[in-house]
């Protein structure tokens, strides 16, 4: 797969420049390194701040979700690499409106260590912080080791729900509780068809034959649960739903949201073909589908493949999921 870029070293900086130039109404670069993005118009004084952070190459994740009803700020590393603790501290400081800041991000070793260190750094600024980690990828560890799971597209639900709670004026304890509830309610599984290329590496993240797919592969090419011939869409969707429903109970009358997410190159046409089976399975379980999200919500640049994320709702989560939000990639009215 070919890429449109200049110097690979400047890929992320140029991307951020373009993003902020195109959407100055949403995004503003902050921090010494200009590797933190904050809302163009900060949240109200006294609002709990929400920050995230992680490697680049996943737009709209992470940076794209900075905006009203969503995140307050985000630290951005090189492609697929953690930002530094200092950059995260910049994001935390930008997010702080005097009511504390929730760090809400995916469970990856480097990110966790750096966000912890960033927490230490901002303690000196008297900013109170809490942490909620997304660990929604069921293919990355068995249920007994659920805390070791990777965080993937489930973070979009967590951003949305926690963002709405913060916007509604909840305090840090409450926003943290609600974010944790949202994180706990999400289960994801992905299937990869073709890799992407990290600009600085210059070669694909993994190799896979023209007629193969890998079930459960991670968004950076981490190994999955099986690799085999590419199957028909309906079979892929059935297996992915099997894996989600084996990990979280969905009973008659439950209210759930479901995301059918392209990892990048896979077009929406194919997502909608998959959605037929997703809906059939949830209808079959007697669940009510709320606000299904079909599109590119968490990607790996030009990787081909899909992920499904199931988010089991209670009244509180559903209310925040449906609340308004705005950013360059997602508007809920």
């Amino acid at each position, binding site marked *: 797969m070919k890429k449109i870029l200049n110097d690979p070293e400047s890929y992320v900086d140029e991307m951020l420049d373009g993003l902020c130039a195109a959407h100055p109404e949403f995004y503003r670069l902050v921090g010494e390194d200009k590797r933190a993005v904050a809302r163009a118009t900060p949240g109200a004084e006294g609002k709990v701040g929400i920050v995230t952070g992680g490697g680049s190459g996943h737009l709209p994740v992470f940076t794209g979700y900075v905006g009203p009803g969503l995140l307050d700020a985000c630290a951005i590393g090189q492609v*697929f*690499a953690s*930002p*530094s*603790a200092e950059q995260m501290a910049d994001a935390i400081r930008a997010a702080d409106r005097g009511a504390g800041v929730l760090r809400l991000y995916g469970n990856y*070793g*480097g990110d*966790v*260590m750096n966000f912890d*260190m960033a927490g230490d750094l901002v303690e000196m600024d008297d900013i109170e912080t809490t942490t909620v980690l997304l660990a929604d990828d069921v293919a990355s560890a068995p249920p007994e080791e659920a805390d070791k799971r990777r965080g993937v597209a489930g973070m979009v639900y967590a951003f949305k729900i926690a963002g709405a709670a913060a916007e509604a004026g909840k305090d840090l304890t409450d926003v943290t509780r609600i974010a944790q509830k949202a994180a706990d309610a999400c289960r994801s599984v992905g299937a990869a068809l073709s890799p992407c290329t990290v600009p600085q590496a210059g070669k694909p993240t993994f190799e896979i034959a023209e007629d193969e797919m890998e079930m459960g592969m991670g968004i950076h090419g981490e190994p999955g649960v099986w690799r085999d011939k590419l199957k028909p869409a309906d079979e892929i969707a059935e297996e992915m739903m099997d894996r989600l429903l084996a990990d979280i109970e969905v009973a008659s009358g439950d209210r759930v949201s479901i995301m059918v997410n392209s990892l990048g190159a896979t077009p929406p046409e194919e997502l909608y073909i998959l959605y037929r089976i997703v809906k059939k399975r949830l209808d079959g379980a007697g669940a009510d589908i709320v606000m299904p999200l079909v599109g590119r919500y968490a990607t790996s640049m030009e990787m081909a493949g899909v992920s499904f994320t199931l988010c089991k709702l209670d009244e509180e989560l559903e209310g925040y999921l449906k609340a308004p939000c705005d950013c360059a990639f997602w508007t809920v009215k």
Partner: protein
Amino acid sequence: MIGVDDLRAAAARLKDAMEQEFDALNAADGKLGDGDLGVTMRSGAREVAARTDQMPDDDFGMALMNAAQAFTKVSSSSYGTLLATGLMAAAKETRGKASVEPSKVAALIAAARDKMMARGKAELGNKTVLDSLHAMVGALEGADDPAAAAVTACRDAQQAFRDKPAQIGRARIFAEKSVGMDDPGMLAMTRIVEAVTGRK
């Protein structure tokens, strides 16, 4: 006594070594992880060496802090962040002192090990850089030639863990494949200690 000038000389040796080990460390990490450990160490060591001028002559702790910040600035991978964490812990213990007695080095490494353990939430025995540090702490206790003892401890630990499965980080998902392979972080620590002690 070990002073700030010794630290500067060690930083210069570390930089040279990490330029040399760039490919080898990337390759070791690439077998199980994302292949960036050479990048982490080379950029970190370059940045530390570039900042030795700013190390205050009369504060060993501040000098170590300076090295820690070099790592947080340029290498935010797991290893870079852990090293920075360890350096900060040692910096805290030596703040305000112009030099350090060789007999106190074991305690500084122990402090680093503990903070890194807290930071990375790994345990001793998980086949990580922590096990190299832990081996050094033990070996330095009453050693005649602390530098030689540290190098030997790192090499021995690396070998002792070779046939165990990885239990942490990216390598965990390849646990079985990792049996028989050096942990890249332990390998890197051997090279670091060889370089800073000048005992190759």
